[in-house]
């Protein structure tokens, strides 16, 4: 109990410090001015969400091979937290886009592919609600999760090459891209903070799933008596 409270406090502190750094430490961007500061939150959350989906994929693989229900708990936790992150990304994106581009939404490559990514994981969670039997649900959703994750790079490639207003990648982009050193530090600090938050949420959600399963077992035993 104390341990969890302590971790929660540490994560909260990290996120708070990242917010402070992105408002007061990072230098102001030349053209977008204060508007650009949402980038530290927006892009870092996107990275955290993508990591969460990566965790979900690994948990799916582990479940298919090892058939331990804990991997299923991890998969559903990671999928839900990842979906929450990507939802935040899809909301903060338009908040930035309206003043910067003059419109909330445009069918640009990054937006569209992030939206498809979001839809894939909504389908994943939807599938889980449609299968009653726990083992079957775990296995079939794990398999769908694997297919969906394999599809993600294909979706990004297809939309990027064939359909593009999102700012070109600043980090790991082509020549001419790159961040001011202070901005870079603040950004990676935000990435760290949001990953900590993401992992904390996954561990809490995992605990909840485990408790639910335990409760279900106890209920069944009680009914048997």
């Amino acid at each position, binding site marked *: 109990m104390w341990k969890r409270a302590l971790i929660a406090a540490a994560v909260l502190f990290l996120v708070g410090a990242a917010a402070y750094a992105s408002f007061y430490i990072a230098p102001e961007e030349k053209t977008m001015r204060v508007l650009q500061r949402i980038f530290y939150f927006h892009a870092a959350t996107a990275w955290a969400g993508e990591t969460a989906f990566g965790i979900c994929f690994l948990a799916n693989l582990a479940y*298919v091979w090892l058939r331990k229900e804990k991997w299923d708990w991890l998969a559903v936790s990671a999928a839900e937290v990842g979906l929450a992150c990507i939802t935040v990304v899809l909301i903060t994106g338009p908040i930035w886009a309206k003043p910067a581009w003059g419109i909330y939404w445009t069918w640009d490559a990054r937006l569209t592919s992030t939206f*498809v990514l979001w*839809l*894939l994981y909504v*389908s994943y969670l*939807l*599938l889980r609600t*449609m*299968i*009653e039997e726990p083992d*079957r649900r775990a*296995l*079939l959703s794990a*398999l*769908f999760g*694997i*297919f*969906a994750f*394999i*599809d993600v790079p*294909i*979706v990004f*490639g*297809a*939309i990027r*090459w*064939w*359909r593009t207003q999102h700012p070109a990648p600043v980090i790991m982009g082509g020549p001419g891209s790159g961040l001011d050193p202070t901005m870079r530090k603040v950004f990676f600090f935000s990435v760290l903070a949001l990953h900590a938050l993401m992992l904390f949420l996954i561990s809490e959600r995992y605990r909840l799933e485990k408790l639910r399963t335990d409760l279900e077992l106890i209920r069944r035993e009680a009914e048997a008596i």
Partner: protein
Amino acid sequence: MSLFANTAVLLGKEIRTEYRSRELLTTTFVFILIVIVLFSFAFDPTSDESRRFAPGLLWLAILFASSLMLQPCFLREQHNDTLSALRLSVSDPFAIFLAKLAANTLFLLLTEILLLPLFAVMYNVPVIPVLHWLLLVLFLASLGISIAGTALSAISAQARMRELLLPVLLLPLLAPILVVSAEVTRALLDRAPVVRWKGIGFIGVFDVVFLTALWLFGEYLLEE
């Protein structure tokens, strides 16, 4: 060897079933036709306009139709538990998937070939000069749709709300096929037709990736 021999026998069974009833092909064909006609009400299908949006519309219609056509694929094996019989009769369950996806590709391709002349006439797009390229795109994309669709119909058949669930699972997964096929078709039907090799290759990559995934994970999809 036994994999391909098994697949051939099972493919024969799928084709025979369809040949006797002809339910799947006729219903799918009529469905696409309805969608195409309804689209013409939603947009103005005059010549220059139609050149721009007709390819996308064609692919959207094909995608919707395939998400319905793939429903019975595993569902009809459930009535008399013929799926268990199928599983017992082959040494490698991948043969079941290969046969079903080959049959689905064949049915989808047949529907598209029947549809193409009607589509060309109704939307006034010249398909004859680029027919062989168009057939290549139709084949590769139908193969991709069938690979992913066969896998997902094995999943959705075991869930509640399966008729609604399959399109929800399948359509986002097929987004790359729609994007690329529509683009390649648009380039082919342009006033100055261009063959987009990169796009055709991309659809081929989609096919290979999902076929490999199905080969690796297919047996788990059919577990009791």
